[in-house]
């Protein structure tokens, strides 16, 4: 596999994927032609693509998938008339474009979809003979696997505890354990993480303990958020994991801002932000991608396309070929990967990180996966999708199982180790819950602190009023909240 970088950005991924994306040919004009093509569709119809594409390279992808004459019966690029490019050009503020006499609208159909990168097949066996892609040693593989198992067990036990009424709310990451752990494994601990809310695995990988997770869920006085946010809205400054906010996709522009600050201070790290398929419909997503491309900042946009946004399936969320093509539209190097394949995720994020930092460019990764659990504990997904579908994805496609098959085939793991590990973790989580439940809740003062750096007079007055009221009617207020 050619692993030579082209100096002028963006091309490494294209090179690596040459054999996979069968229609990518030449890439040396990547930057220029992409630049041209940004404006093409706004000015004049796209030029027809010659059979032997030696022409607009990445634009050709764009053209190949979209350039279909709406009136003609043919929908294959090979059937478009061969024509030598016009010698007349339009010298426009956005770049030079060539004219054509053919009026061709791009198609709204997406028959040819971007291919998906994977390393391990459904049976956990390498999909390719190229062992370079499996550059993971035993220690790393086991660390990834055990973290994925911990995440899986943690989710199950915490979910159960919500059902039992011990915590008020929970959201599982069932089915997305590989995304959570493998992406974090490929990053450095100094890289900022701007999560959505389904990525506690990144915290787990960085050393957040089960007790710290449990404390946040119970909102007790030891949790870093001081009891102010909902369960699963973790945040930890020392782990460079920004506090989760419930608003969808607002973290995406934040990530661009953080990447901008890294660029200003010339740091050798990057930013990663996660979001789902639903989040890509928001204004914040589009504007942030556009900004990141224009500003040339080192941010990885990681989309967990898990098929569902609560009850909205992806074909009701967008009509584009998923999310990966949106990156292309904004001039962001993009890739589609198998989100249930831990090794593929690891490889892709490694390369994305290198690209982002060395070439100061954003990167978009669309990981195809499945949300095997409910949206949250407030949801029963069997109401809008079949139990069969859920079970199918919990089967062979399950990321934990697939990685397990691979490490077992390497002789690094077995069923004895598995059951031992699982029962151990289960005990630890249960213990953490018990401990967290007993700890005191944050005091009333924490309701008024941190609104500003120093509480202003009106907040002090309001706090005094609350204290007075609570003292007067102590029996009406919870006994475990200190004043």
């Amino acid at each position, binding site marked *: 596999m050619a692993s030579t970088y082209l100096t002028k950005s963006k091309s490494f991924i294209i090179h690596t994927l040459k054999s996979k994306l069968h229609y990518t040919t030449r890439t040396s004009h990547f930057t220029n032609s992409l630049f041209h093509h940004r404006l093409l569709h706004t000015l004049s119809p796209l030029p027809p693509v010659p059979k032997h594409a030696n022409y607009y390279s990445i634009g050709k992808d764009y053209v190949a998938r979209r350039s279909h004459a709406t009136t003609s019966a043919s929908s294959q690029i090979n059937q478009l008339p061969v024509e030598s490019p016009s010698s007349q050009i339009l010298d426009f503020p956005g770049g030079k474009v060539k004219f054509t006499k053919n009026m061709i609208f791009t198609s709204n159909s997406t028959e040819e979809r971007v291919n998906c990168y994977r390393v391990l097949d459904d049976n956990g066996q390498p999909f390719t003979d190229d062992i370079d892609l499996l550059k993971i040693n035993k220690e790393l593989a086991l660390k990834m696997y055990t973290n994925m198992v911990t995440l899986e067990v943690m989710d199950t036990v915490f979910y159960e505890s919500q059902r039992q009424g011990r915590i008020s709310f929970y959201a599982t990451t069932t089915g997305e354990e590989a995304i959570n752990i493998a992406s974090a494994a490929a990053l450095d601990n100094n890289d900022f993480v701007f999560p959505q809310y389904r990525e506690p695995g990144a915290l787990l990988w960085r050393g957040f303990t089960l007790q710290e997770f449990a404390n946040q869920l119970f909102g007790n006085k030891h*949790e870093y*958020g001081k009891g102010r946010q909902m369960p699963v809205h973790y945040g930890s400054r020392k782990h460079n994991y920004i506090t989760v906010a419930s608003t969808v996709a607002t973290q995406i*522009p934040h990530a661009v801002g953080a990447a901008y600050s890294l660029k*200003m201070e010339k740091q050798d790290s990057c930013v990663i932000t996660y979001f789902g398929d639903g989040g890509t419909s928001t204004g914040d997503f589009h504007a*942030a991608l556009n*900004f990141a491309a*224009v500003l040339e900042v080192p941010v990885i946009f990681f989309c967990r396309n898990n098929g569902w946004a609560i009850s909205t399936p992806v074909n009701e969320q967008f009509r584009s070929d998923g999310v990966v093509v949106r990156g292309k539209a904004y001039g962001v190097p993009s890739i589609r990967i198998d989100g249930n394949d831990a090794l593929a995720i690891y490889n892709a994020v490694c390369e994305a990180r290198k690209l982002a930092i060395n070439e100061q460019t954003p990167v978009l990764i669309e990981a195809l996966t499945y949300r095997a659990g409910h949206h949250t504990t407030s949801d029963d997904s069997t109401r809008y999708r079949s139990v069969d579908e859920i079970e199918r994805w919990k089967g062979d496609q399950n990321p934990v199982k697939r990685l397990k098959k691979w490490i077992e085939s390497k002789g690094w793991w077995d069923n004895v180790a598995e059951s031992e590990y699982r029962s151990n973790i289960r005990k630890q989580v249960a213990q953490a819950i018990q401990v967290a439940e007993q700890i005191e809740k944050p005091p009333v003062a924490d309701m008024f602190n941190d609104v500003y750096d120093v509480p202003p007079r009106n907040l002090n007055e309001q706090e005094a009023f609350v204290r007075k009221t609570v003292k007067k009617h102590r029996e009406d207020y919870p006994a475990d909240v200190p004043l």
Partner: protein
Amino acid sequence: MASLIIQRIGAATSFDTNNNFDRRSLSGRKSGFLVVRSDGAKITTGLKPIGSRTHHLVTNAVATKPGNSAASTASKSGHEILLFDALREGLEEEMDRDARVCVMGEDVGHYGGSYKVTKGLAPKYGDLRVLDTPIAENAFTGMGIGAAMTGLRPIIEGMNMGFLLLAFNQISNNCGMLHYTSGGQFKIPVVIRGPGGVGRQLGAEHSQRLESYFQSIPGIQMVACSTPYNAKGLMKAAIRSDNPVILFEHVLLYNLKETIPDEEYVLNLEEAEMVRPGQHVTILTYSRMRYHVMQAAKTLVNKGYDPEVIDIRSLKPFDLHMIGNSVKKTHRVLIVEECMRTGGIGASLTAAINENFQDYLDAPIVCLSSQDVPTPYAGTLEEWTVVQPPQIVAAVEQLCK
């Protein structure tokens, strides 16, 4: 006067209808009273004489003649400067002082900003530190918040305050909240600034008064500048503050000229400004309306009134200390604002004063605001939506009867 609404809170109290201005003492709290004879001459007993103001009145909303504000009389030397330049000076001083300060917004870079507040900064600091952004207020506000959380101190410029409505989600749900919800782990020292208010025929969408919408958001501070002196001081204070601060400028005030001190100064974000001490009535105002009030004050003085004018400057939180002291002295309050009647700064201020100083009031608080209509384009109609000096004079006369 057809378009003006005067608000009265509570039952109307009776006033003397003759020309004597009689301030009633309330259960012995005040000593002495002021009597104004019908010929306009004043007799005072035990109170400071009226001529004890320390600065001139500024009489025109877009005044070009220099006026000295109280605080700047202390300095020996100074330089004349226009308001937009004062903002720029403050910004530049802070950018020199702290390398983490950066600016982002539309056309702030090489264009120098739509109102020239960032003129010359991009050539000096580079176009990464003075960043031109694409047109997406939600995104660059979010960007500023993310950059602030990871160590920078951005200043986010809205080309017009009204455009920041697009960034409301980021400002309310993230900017105001993340310091709190993260348990104090991440701070957001941003300054969000831009021109707002009714201009000269800018149309309804460009004449918004965002302070009414933003005032409820917990976690942010709001200040409004009105003179070159306080513009520079507030800008510097806002940048140095670790809290998110929204600095409201006014489209029509950018060309005000004033002499400001040469030496460095920073103002307090939570303090109001005593524009003109007085005895008869407290007039609370901010931003452009300060100038309409001062113009009316001139007329009022000629008619024998002695208004105390306070530019509240700090819109969130209110400087109830200075306001309270003034109310305790004059017992009558008139609020003059540019916000709409419903839910404006005046509405909140009325509630706050009533709650805290009700015992000191001799009359219900009067609040003059703009009407609840989108700002019309036609010049005469636009003029009528904004409180004008004759209305202020009439309100004071009514209040002091």
